[in-house]
């Protein structure tokens, strides 16, 4: 059976994991338009290639991020979710320094 390297539990059978969607930014619900919101809800990149995704190790209730190729189905890396916030912060400074 296919296995995933869980950052907390090590190598486990894929049956123990639940797919949680692509990692992406949610628009600010207090200020975004209906159009932006429906776009966020429904319009998908549906990338054929490398993506970053949320996965849940169901028995331990642990969410993490995996880098997966949606064509070859190879999972090339897994990360602790705290990295998500590091990335977000990095992108934020990036965006600010572009101003």
């Amino acid at each position, binding site marked *: *059976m*296919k296995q995933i390297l869980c950052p907390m539990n090590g190598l486990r059978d894929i*049956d123990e994991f*639940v*797919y949680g969607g692509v990692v992406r930014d949610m628009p600010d619900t207090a200020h975004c338009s209906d*159009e932006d919101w*429906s*776009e966020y*809800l*429904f*319009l*998908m*990149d*549906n*990338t*054929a290639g490398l993506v970053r995704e949320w996965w849940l190790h169901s028995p331990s209730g642990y969410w993490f991020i995996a880098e997966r190729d*949606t*064509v*070859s*189905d190879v999972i090339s890396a897994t990360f602790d979710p705290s990295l998500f916030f590091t990335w977000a912060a990095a992108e934020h400074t990036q965006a600010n320094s572009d101003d």
Partner: protein
Amino acid sequence: MPLTLIKAAFDRAIGKAVAADLPTTPELKSHYDVVIVGGGGHGLATAYYLANYHGITNVAVLEKAYLGSGNTARNTAVIRSNYLTPEGVEFYRASVDLFQDLSYELDFNMMYSERGQLTLAHTDANLRSFRQRCAVNQHFGGRTEMISPDEIRHLVPSLNMHPGHYPVLGGLWHIEGATARHDAVAWGYARGASRAGVELHQLTEVRDVLVESGRVVGVATDRGRVGAGCVIQAVAGHSSVLAGYAGFKLPITTYPLQAMVTQPVKPFLDPLVSSPSLHCYVQQTSRGEIVIGGGSDPYPLYNTRATLGLKEQLVANAVELFPRMGELRTLRQWAGLTDMTPDYSPVMGLSPVENYYLDAGWGTWGFKATPIAGKLMAELVAGDGGVPRLMQPFSLERFRSLNLVNEMGATAASH
């Protein structure tokens, strides 16, 4: 050798060569009035209706592999119209009507076989939602009724009335439920289109969509560029990829759907039988093979690989329904790439790019829609800009205006 055989051979050699049903791929012209991307049932049906009903024959169908090699070849061929929403029921009914006459329309044997489809209720919630589906169906003139466990026993004597510890409490009996030979649908439409002048280009992959000031002007293929008055995409699991070339996103995620078939045995199962709670449906083909289908893969993927886990689950549930199937062997198993939408309804019609039309979001339910989708897509393209009534509820725009057509209730077992 018997003389009659030799005589027949001479007759053929001297007289007429056997005409191939489909011509070999011609050279690409520099421009077509209509370019259809995807040579599955939907693309070919669209080409057929354009050429034969609207006189539009300067049409090319571009298919990256061979005709009907996608989901048209991979589906389990359940044809039915017992859906949940009025929009869906009306739409799929129109398709079933076309299917019933399709062998005559195309002069090609579809092996259309009206068996009736039985969906099993294992819970009170199932019964309630089936009653609703039954009422909506009957309202639109469909032949669907609720039947009791006794009637089910009579209809399908080989069915285990307690599969997987679930009781069979009743059933949704869809008398018009049917199956057909899926390849014949692609080939019949392809032949009809090609005879009317449509060009069929196999081994021709579209790699980009050419858009100038918001309007499509052609496509780039691995055999060169082609100009087009308008372009229709009908590429199932690759819908988002094509839309990406054209510069927009779709409410679609691509998931594999797996199925399998057993060795052929004597006929023992007439109706198509489905159990939403067990995520499994079973039917016997005219050849005697038992087709087993079920739910989608648990995560998105652009790959038709199979997984043992899902196959084991399918077999386990099928054997629960029909214990005698435990003695059968698997003959073939496979997967297809399905274009799943959030509301389990298709995305058809206009797109953000002018003259670029969508026939997408067919997920696990689009084989039965092949005739009506082709007919309506042809009407849309040939018409004066108006979207045909039956197609209107399925516009891409519905996601912006939050007018989704929620077919959830009807697709617990995807087929």
